[in-house]
């Protein structure tokens, strides 16, 4: 496995073999389980390069562990509002972008795609390029940084990313109430402006997280508990969800984008983002395998001629695997 430590070494690594795939800590191992591709590990491509708290932005190398990002931001009272996943497991910033995995906080302000601002990446011809920008607002050129979110490293090797961040809320408060489709819609569309609405595996309980000034949250929580039976619980449950600690059984973990009316179809899953995504430990009808031996794309995927044309534009020699490999 190659372990470049600079962006020019990343470029050389991409050109060093006929077929390559950049990986981070491989916490979603199925995404990089490709036969015949030399792996380029980003673990030495590490470090926060620029962080201006007053700008609400930071730039870091792709192999920077999320734990380092999260703790550095926290020291300045800031955070990535979408709750990056698998932080303790060692996930990297680049891996988060390539996998497109957001956490429960995606519900309120958006996910990885909504906070990425810019990227430096190496295309299939070994060209190191910077697209997007480093400021919180930028409309110049095509939005390649967004395209790379969820692209599984199949269109380029990500070397460096710039993200927008937000000031962290003063406090958080977690409520546990019975889960029904109605409750999800009622709470999600309410005046309470919760920042996470998740169904626990088992399908019985709904977690509602409020965030903001502590004095205001108590009143809001009381009002919710007057309307639904339930209780206030500790915030540490979010760490368990973030690390998929509940998914210990089969070793299978599949991500499926859904709509809230389908929540009941996924009783064994952690349903996150207000009923918009299910992480299943059992085989669903459709989805992307994160862990396990099932096909990468369960139940097929959306296909169109443009995909091959874009692949050819960024990687004419097929140096990176395709989405089907």
């Amino acid at each position, binding site marked *: 496995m190659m372990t470049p430590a600079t962006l020019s070494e990343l470029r050389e690594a991409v050109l060093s073999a006929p077929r390559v795939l950049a990986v981070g800590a491989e916490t979603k191992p199925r995404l990089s389980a490709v036969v015949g591709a030399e792996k380029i590990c980003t673990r030495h491509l590490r470090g926060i390069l620029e962080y201006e708290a007053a700008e609400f932005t930071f730039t870091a190398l792709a192999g920077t562990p999320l734990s380092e990002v999260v703790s550095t931001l926290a020291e300045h009272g800031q955070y990535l509002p979408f709750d990056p996943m698998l932080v303790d497991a060692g996930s990297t910033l680049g891996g988060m972008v390539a996998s*497109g995995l957001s956490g429960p906080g995606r519900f309120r302000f958006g996910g990885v795609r909504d906070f990425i601002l810019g990227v430096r990446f190496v295309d299939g011809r070994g060209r190191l390029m910077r697209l997007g*920008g480093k400021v919180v*607002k930028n*409309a110049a050129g095509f939005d*390649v940084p967004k395209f790379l979110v969820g692209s599984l490293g199949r269109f380029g090797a990500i070397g460096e990313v710039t993200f927008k961040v937000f000031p962290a809320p003063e406090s958080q408060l977690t409520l546990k109430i019975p889960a029904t489709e109605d409750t999800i819609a009622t709470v999600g569309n309410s005046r309470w402006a919760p920042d996470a609405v998740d169904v626990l595996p088992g399908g019985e309980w709904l977690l509602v997280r409020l965030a903001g000034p502590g004095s205001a949250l108590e009143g809001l929580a009381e009002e919710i508990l007057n309307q639904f039976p339930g209780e206030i619980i500790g915030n540490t449950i979010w760490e368990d969800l973030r690390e998929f600690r509940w998914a210990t059984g089969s070793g299978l973990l599949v991500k499926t984008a859904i709509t809230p009316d389908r929540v009941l179809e996924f009783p064994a899953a952690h349903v996150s983002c207000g009923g918009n995504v299910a992480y299943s430990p059992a085989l669903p009808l459709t989805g992307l395998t994160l862990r396990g031996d099932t096909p990468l*794309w369960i139940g097929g995927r959306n296909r169109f001629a443009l995909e091959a044309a874009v692949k050819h534009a960024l990687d004419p020699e097929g140096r990176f695997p395709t989405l089907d490999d």
Partner: protein
Amino acid sequence: MSTAALERLAGLLPPERLLRRPVELAAYESDGLTAFRTRPLAVALPETEDEVVTLVRHCLEWKMPFVARGSGTSLSGGSLPIAGGVVIALNRLNRILKLDPRQRIAVVQPGVVNTQVTQAARPFGLHYAPDPSSQSICTIGGNVAFNSGGAHCLKYGMTSNHVLGIKAVLATGEVVSWGGQSRESTGPDWCGLFTGNEGLFGIALEITLQLLPLAECFHTVLAGYRTLEEAGDAVSAVIASGLLPGAIEIMDALALAAAQAAVHADYPEGCEAVLIVELEGPREVVAFERGKLDAILEASHPIEMRPARDAEERLAIWKGRKSAFSAVGRLSPDFIVQDGVVPRRRLGEALRRIAEMSRETGIRVANVFHAGDGNLHPLILFDGRESGALHRAEELAGRILKMCVAMGGSITGEHGIGVEKREFLGEMFTSDEIDCMQRLRSAHDPFGIANPGKMFPGKEAPALSHVGLHPLEKAGLISRE
């Protein structure tokens, strides 16, 4: 363009929906960037998605350039016609196909006007967040093509952050559907790549938008300052406090004078800059944060602070702000709007240098900007009847853009490159990066028929023939962001 291609085109639509007479084409010759004007060969007015697909495929067959157009409010010349090409005007595809208040989504056709989405959602306690100043007339199709912004981007992002799904016809004739009604997705973000393509990839036929719950409570404050610098310092203090306001806007003295003249906006006496800060959220949260914000602003030495006491006063504050651009038309026969971005901490420096350039060249510059985003909107005033005035104004605009890039910012925050800033794309991107974007463009449009001559430098420049306010602007129907 061969007559045969035009005749075949004429066979695709009833005659009253294919405009060919000069008098009919005149209204489509220009957009919000009034300095440019080109007469297209024809303007097609499709009424269905199938008709749009048929038109694009016809253009592909005959290698006929096309420009998709909504309400023509682009400030970068994005919907400027191509000589010898066809304008596909999408205003008749104006239906909201679906509004699901439980899932909080709306599926709309490209010709739906921005505010119509919020109007349709309001009875359910929802709204569509992106709010460009032209929102009462600009279309969602145009918003998607240019990834439009607005006053609330700091907290809620741009158009792209609210697009969940797109059905589009590409310039290859292929019809694609990406994303859908879920806020989550798997695989590459095709919707993200399409949004902001500036019409170079194809035409969106159906767009799925996320809707957000209306904030229960607002606290909007207008504060007047003796100097721009003091207003800028107040912004830094608000940001450093950990508050996340929905909007932070600044207007300078010249912009204030314009708004006063145009909509009789009332500002504190003797102020050189006005700051607008808006908090929103559940009433308990706003009640707490309001105390914090007011204390910060009081400590920033304003001449006067005016919190909006009710919804009407809040709307009045925003009316003054959103009318500022077109209001500047009262101060000067012509003006250029710039859209550069600088890192927020360098706002004060950027404004000082713009003021210096203004003094040096003797060209008046008004400033209205999204201070929270570092997104400047210098309005460069000139009189197009004076020989060389437009050229001098454009030169100043170019110097400002180069300054933004040198400070680590961008040449456009929300208006796009269009025809206006394409010569500056190379200031931000290397030749490899521009080549990469051109390859992506070719993947969507191998023959370069979709909005050619936009975004990328080096193509034939359309003739400069006219400057001044857009006719709709003169009529008070649209305003500029």
